[in-house]
């Protein structure tokens, strides 16, 4: 029996609730690691560029004397980029960051909307506690132990990390395929998606997937699906899939 993933359910005036699946420790860690690399690269980039310009030669060595310009123009901005990255980027990107985008998650308030500026900043203030004692130990434990996978910063700010599905696409030909009469809605989606992804797939993957789909939805026995019109010629397999999906061909 599969366990139902936790989700945030928001009531709506239409009577149809809004359902947002909550991101777990894996998606959080993925987003964090991407962001961590970005901020390290940005901070190091600033430091290296600033040091080269400041020194006027190919060295990153700090000056031997206390040099205010070195600290103010090279060290302090690099530290600011590293430590204020999440505060600034989450504010500008409405509760998202490049890492969160890549992981397909975003921060939302409990009502499903974008969190307020105060909530975003409070969430980041509590990184101090979440990062204790090392490597986000406290945050990781609370994320694993709480049902909605919350770190202390999220509890304090009333925020959650949810999957965004910003890249969710409709299979363009699913309606056509379903209307053809041979396929149920799920089958129509699978055939339509396979046809959409056809150019991006490797030839052997095309044949393998087409064979499986035709066996399941084409009403063909495994044997007849095996004996394709032209053996492993993927154009022939594609034609058979298109015939399955096309209206009036059922």
């Amino acid at each position: 029996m599969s366990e139902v993933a936790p989700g945030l359910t928001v009531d709506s005036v239409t009577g149809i609730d809004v359902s947002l699946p909550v991101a777990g420790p894996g998606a959080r860690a993925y987003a964090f690691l991407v962001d961590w690399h970005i901020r390290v690269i940005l901070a190091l980039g600033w430091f290296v560029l600033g040091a080269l310009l400041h020194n006027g030669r190919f060295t990153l060595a700090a000056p031997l004397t206390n040099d205010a310009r070195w600290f103010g123009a090279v060290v302090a901005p690099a530290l600011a980029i590293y430590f204020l990255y999440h505060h600034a980027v989450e504010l500008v990107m409405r509760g998202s960051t490049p890492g969160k985008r890549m992981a397909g998650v975003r921060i939302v308030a409990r009502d499903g909307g974008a969190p307020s500026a105060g909530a975003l900043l409070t969430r980041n203030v509590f990184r101090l506690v979440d990062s204790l004692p090392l490597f986000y130990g406290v945050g990781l434990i609370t994320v694993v132990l709480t049902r909605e996978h919350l770190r202390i910063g999220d509890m304090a700010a009333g925020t959650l990390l949810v999957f965004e599905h910003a890249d969710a696409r409709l299979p363009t030909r699913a309606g056509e395929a379903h209307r053809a009469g041979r396929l149920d809605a799920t089958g129509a989606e699978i055939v339509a998606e396979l046809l959409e992804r056809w150019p991006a797939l490797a030839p052997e993957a095309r044949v393998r997937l087409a064979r499986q789909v035709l066996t399941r939805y084409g009403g063909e026995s495994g044997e007849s699906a095996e004996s394709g019109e032209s053996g492993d010629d993927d154009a022939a397999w594609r034609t058979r899939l298109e015939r399955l999906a096309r209206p009036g061909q059922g």
Partner: protein
Amino acid sequence: MTVNGSARQRALTVSLLQRADLWRQAERRARRLARGRSDDAADATHLADDYRLLAHDLARVRTLMPDSRTREYLEAAYARAHATLHHGAWRIGSALLSLFREEIPAVVRWLRPYILWSTAIFALAVIGGYALVQRYPELIALFASPDLIASVERGQLWTEGLLNIVPSSVLSVQILANNIVVTLFAYCAGFLFGLGTLYILGLNGLMLGAVFAFVSLHGLRAQLVGFIVAHGCVELSVMCLSGAAGAAVGEALIRPAQAGRIESFRVAALRSGKLLIACALLLVGAGILEGYVSPDPRVPLWARSALGAGYWLFMAALLSGWLFGRRAPRAPA
């Protein structure tokens, strides 16, 4: 009967999937409006129709095609339309203005009793530290570094000649970074049922009192007052403010006002945490004063005092919202 049911379901699914273009248009409109990229009133009004359409179709898709990409798409589009319709476009400028003009002053009003208590605790700790070291001077070793003690015993404040060792900019950044971290810790330590905040407030108060008593014993009190007057008024006030915010979080855990401790903690932390943003900004200014003005012997005492008082008034204006155009509501005639 079974055949009819199946045919009906197929017809419903086909008719649903034929509306894909409408869903795409609705999703694009919600995305556009959420970014604030449209001033077209008709466009915005249309979103309400989109919302109903998506709700209706999502309900049917949840029944007819529960494990499909179509459902995944519609769930995301519906959630986006819901958020856009109920929360409007995100404008960082107005969000920050609202934070400083309305939200932070409201937090300060709510925290008034906590501010009074944390100030009282801090003041008591200062008096305690002062009395302790005045009576037993050797106890200063518990609160101050050997270098500081040696310097004062030579009849010289440790701050003298500071700018010959460290430039003002470096000093400012070091000080403000340290103060911000201490302030944030004083707040976050409230998570330990308020005990952490109490400890940080008490320790800082004891240190301040002890150092004052020690320099007084060596006749350097006037110099120390001269050194801290410019930045200290705001710095010490911020310490009490962050202590108050931490105490509010601690009390929410000890005596939850909401249904549960976690919920109570969430409400208290979200409300009080906003104050920390103002505190961090104020500490940047205090750090600059401490790096550039306080150790500079060319700045006379009257100028330092004026700067300290002026900056404290600036803090009061910021925390009351007056700086961002908030005026106290007039009582009805």
